[in-house]
């Protein structure tokens, strides 16, 4: 590919351009769906193409170490704001996940969404643009813009197409994350001013700001502001309570994107910005992060056990699983961080699939109550097979994807902080307890009431099969992904 080809810009703005295409065909819902599918597939193809650049190995011209695709241009000169996008191994993996999950999200919305179809898909695509921007932006101002921009479509997705107390949940989701973002903005500006005063160059560039000298006392507070914003997104205990509400009331695709992608932006932000900008402060705060992640792991798993609503159960399971990611980041060793990044991907695949499955059951019976189901294995074997597969993946059965992340995180963290890891091991047992309860009460036993259930359609089967293949592939042969993220992690942790 020619080196001046703006592949990163295309990656970020292709979905947004797709919105215009959808506008052109807004009269026909069917065409809108097809259009959205084409756009997301094109985006996926583009992301896969970007892998080629990773394979080429050589860094892009003028790019910081580890970034094989890089784009940098003057934007708002007066404030030193630049349009800087860059892709290293971690970004690549997250971009791939985003493109992949958005295709899935279009797939699961196909029949479920019947009202205001053009607007729905337009929001979905706009959100994809925002998320890709978050994973690629290297100028803190640009990053912040994307960070805020991706919230708005999700707010409307929950508020318009949601269920139950959807407005409450949408507002709650928005307020929580927005409040966190504001603190982060304050920290960004403070860092910007400090750097400007020190060097005379006012800039938002991550790689400039990294060299700012910040006294330890101040760094703690600035890091705390970043951490707070990311911890809400993560979500870390005790800032997680927006998540069950948002998940439960969001439409299926909303839940899928929320769990698979939006939560990852918090973890990504911590890896890309939080820790590198304030290494000492981050190190000092590690015990705090250990504590809340271990509590989150146990807390989420324990409370998931009590849930009656399947979506809420999966939501709490996310709190637990994301605790492992936070644990790996806090340990900040090459192994633990590799585990955290691959756990982000794995959680995205597995939890996305579980939300898709719950959505499919909900579409059939209009109930997400566990108590409605029971003994559905005989009726819908294909759906049940996938349900079992993803539940087992979520429970960390080796050979499936989640095990890889959890195992590497635990091994890596144990080496650095045995005490914290020891607490997390408890989560390994508790996860299985709520998962087998879900499996048993939904799939096994006797039918509680006669349900009109049809097995998977071709579209649904296709969506789940793709996710299933991903889950097994990542479980059996995660080495390629681990290789891609190796260089950036070595650079971040300063290990060769």
């Amino acid at each position, binding site marked *: 590919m020619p080196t001046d080809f703006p592949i990163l810009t295309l990656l970020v703005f292709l979905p947004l351009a797709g919105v215009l295409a959808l506008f052109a065909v807004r009269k026909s819902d069917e065409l809108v769906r097809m259009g959205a599918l084409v756009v997301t597939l094109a985006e996926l193809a583009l992301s896969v193409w970007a892998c080629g650049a990773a394979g080429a190995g050589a860094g892009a011209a003028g790019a910081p170490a580890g970034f094989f695709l890089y784009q940098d241009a003057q934007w708002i000169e007066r404030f030193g704001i630049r349009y800087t996008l860059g892709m290293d191994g971690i970004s690549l993996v997250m971009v791939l996940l985003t493109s992949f999950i958005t295709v899935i999200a279009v797939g699961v919305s196909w029949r479920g969404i019947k009202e205001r179809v053009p607007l729905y898909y337009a929001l979905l695509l706009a959100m994809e643009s925002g998320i890709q921007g978050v994973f690629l932006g290297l100028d803190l101002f640009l990053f912040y813009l994307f960070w805020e921009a991706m919230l708005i479509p999700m707010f409307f997705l929950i508020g318009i197409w949601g269920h139950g107390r959807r407005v409450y949940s949408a507002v*709650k989701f928005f*307020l*929580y994350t927005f*409040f966190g973002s504001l603190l982060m903005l304050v920290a960004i500006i403070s860092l910007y001013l400090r750097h400007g005063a020190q060097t005379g160059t006012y800039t938002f560039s991550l790689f400039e700001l990294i060299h700012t000298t910040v006294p330890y*006392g101040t760094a*703690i*507070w600035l890091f705390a502001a970043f951490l707070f914003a990311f911890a809400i997104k993560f979500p870390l205990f*005790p800032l997680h*309570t*927006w998540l069950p509400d948002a998940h439960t009331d969001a439409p299926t695709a909303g839940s899928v994107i929320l769990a698979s992608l939006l939560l990852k932006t918090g973890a990504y932000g911590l890896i890309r910005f939080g820790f590198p900008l304030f290494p000492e*402060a981050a190190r*000092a*705060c590690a015990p*705090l992060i250990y504590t809340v992640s271990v509590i989150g792991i146990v*807390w989420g798993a*324990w*409370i998931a*056990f*009590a*849930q009656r609503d399947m979506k809420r159960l999966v939501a709490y399971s996310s709190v637990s699983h994301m605790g492992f990611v936070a644990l790996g980041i806090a340990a900040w060793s*090459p*192994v633990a961080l590799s585990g955290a990044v691959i756990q982000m991907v794995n959680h995205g695949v597995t939890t996305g699939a579980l939300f898709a499955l719950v959505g499919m059951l909900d579409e059939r019976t209009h109930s997400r109550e566990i108590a409605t189901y029971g*003994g559905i294995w*005989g009726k819908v*074997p294909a759906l049940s097979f996938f349900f*079992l597969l993803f539940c*087992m993946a979520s429970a960390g*059965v*080796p*050979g499936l994807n989640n*095990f890889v992340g959890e195992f*590497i995180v*635990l*091994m*890596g963290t*144990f*080496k650095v902080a*045995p005490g914290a890891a*020891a607490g997390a*091991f408890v989560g*390994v*047992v508790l996860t*299985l*307890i709520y998962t*087998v*309860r879900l499996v*048993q009460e939904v*799939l*096994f*036993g*006797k039918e509680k009431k006669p349900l009109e259930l049809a097995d998977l359609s071709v579209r649904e089967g296709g969506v789940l099969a793709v996710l299933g293949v991903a889950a097994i592939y990542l479980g*059996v*042969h*995660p*080495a390629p992904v*681990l*290789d891609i993220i*190796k260089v950036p992690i*070595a650079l971040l942790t300063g*290990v060769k």
Partner: protein
Amino acid sequence: MTLYLALMLLFPLLGGTVSALAGRKLPRRLVEAGVCAAVWASFVCAVLAAASYRGPVSVEFGRWLSAFDLQAPIHLYLDPLSLSLSVMICFVCGLIHVYSVYYMADQADYARFFALLNLFVFAMLTLILAENLPLLYLGWEGVGLCSYLLVGFWYTDSNNATAGRKAFITTRIGDTALLVGIAWLFQLFGTFSIPQINGMGFLLPHGIVTAIGILFLVGAMGKSAQVPLMVWLPDAMAGPTPVSAMIHAATMVTAGVYLLSRMFPFIGGSAVTCAAIAITGGITAFYGATCALAQRDLKKVLAFSTISQIGYMMLGVGAGAITAATFHLLVHAFFKALLFLGAGCVITAMHHEQDIYKMGGLKDRLPLTFWPFLAGAACLAGIPLTGGFFSKDSILAAVFLKEGTLYTSLYLLALLTALLTSYYSFRLIYLVFFGSQVHVHTHGELKVMQWVLVPLALLGLFGGVLDLPGYLGGGFLDSFFGHQAGGEVGHSAAQEVALQGVAATLAIFGLLAAHWRYGGKSRVDRVRESSTRPSPLYAFLLNGWYFDRLYHAILIRPYEYLSGILWEKVDEGVIDDSLDGMSSGLGITGRWLGRWSTGKVSLYILSFAAGGAVVLGYLAWLTL
């Protein structure tokens, strides 16, 4: 060798995957033939590997987990221990596959059953052949998953599903201890390779070896149903009988013994760990035997006897007698699979009746079941010259020869257990096969099923030749394992004969006691006996010393209860409401003030302020 090892694993994996994905579309006969062929093909590979075996081999097939210094490749290791177990597993599982074809002939859901059966064989072989601990853990969890799904195979009865769930969760507790042990070893050595770790144990302080050894022991307790994690195995009998034979008697449940034997060069470095293993084994052997005395369900008698026999193996490992433990593991696999498959024949013939008090006189009606079953019971009881006699005796001898009061008392306990074992074995024989006859129903399938028992019976009876005592010409296993056994003390032939004499006397005595107690009873007597109210001691044994009730009261109920409290009262009640309260408080102070009157708000503020103060204090402390 590489090819044999690869194919040994790939055949059952392929068989299982194809049956799982396409089994319902393929003709039934094809699926049945395919899964059986897959396991027997593995057996052929195992035998070929044995034939060409010259010394320990390790083969790497590719990468699995690989992040910086964390490397867990797909790497297999073949040594006498893994080789002998692989051959046994392929053989016993092969026979049980054939048996299952007939046992499950009237089941519609054959594809799921056979897929899981084949995948189980794959996972079990992976466990045995793994060169590194994460790969071993993959097999370890894989067999657990298959066990979970097979115990709950008849899922419409929620009792079966509950039994499967109990097995899965209880063993997961042990598995987690194992995982901690693995993490610790990785922290210390930076490697997962079992042979490497085994070679480096001496570098560590004694205390750490002990601690890691205990973690591995807890892992083994879960999988091998040792006290106090044994509660799942009796319930697991809810699964189809071939599953009980294969997973819960011959292969998976002995994985714990295998794990400890595999890691023995490392964990054997600590005398404390060895003593802990021996105590666990001794107590479990006694526990299982006492419970088996009182059981009325044919399969439960066998389940408790399995717990007890694995206890013996553990005792052997604890005494450092790895060869003896493996010897008993192999022979036990033959005769216990035999007993379960025999029980399957009896249960089929009895129209799915499992209460031994309602059976009787099957000796003449099912001779082809009776004679092999008798052989199995004789092995279990340790009647002289059967395989079970020699293997159990080699463990007893090893324990006897260990110094110290601990091992002496364990030896006496094991002897008492041997007596009980003989008694309950023949109680089973007398109640099921002797006395007045009941109506049975025999059909074509049963005939084939019974023939499967014969090779197992021969192996059980003559399994002793695997490792004969010194005065009878010495053992094959002993020389095969020679270099790695270690810790076994030589003993004279006279001592050996004397010890075997004691064990033989006890076994015969148990037989006679059972004959005296149950031999002459008519059916009417038994039914009367069984309907009387059980004595407290009898109830205590029947209920497995009430461990289930204890765990329910101290673990399960509190966990369930607290999960509800934590969710509704704390997570939604305190955390969520306080955050909500704060966010609404930022904007709408009026409404906030209005809530003062309820008194709830003060709690929120208090809790939130407290939390905030902790975080701020922490940050301030860091600043200073």
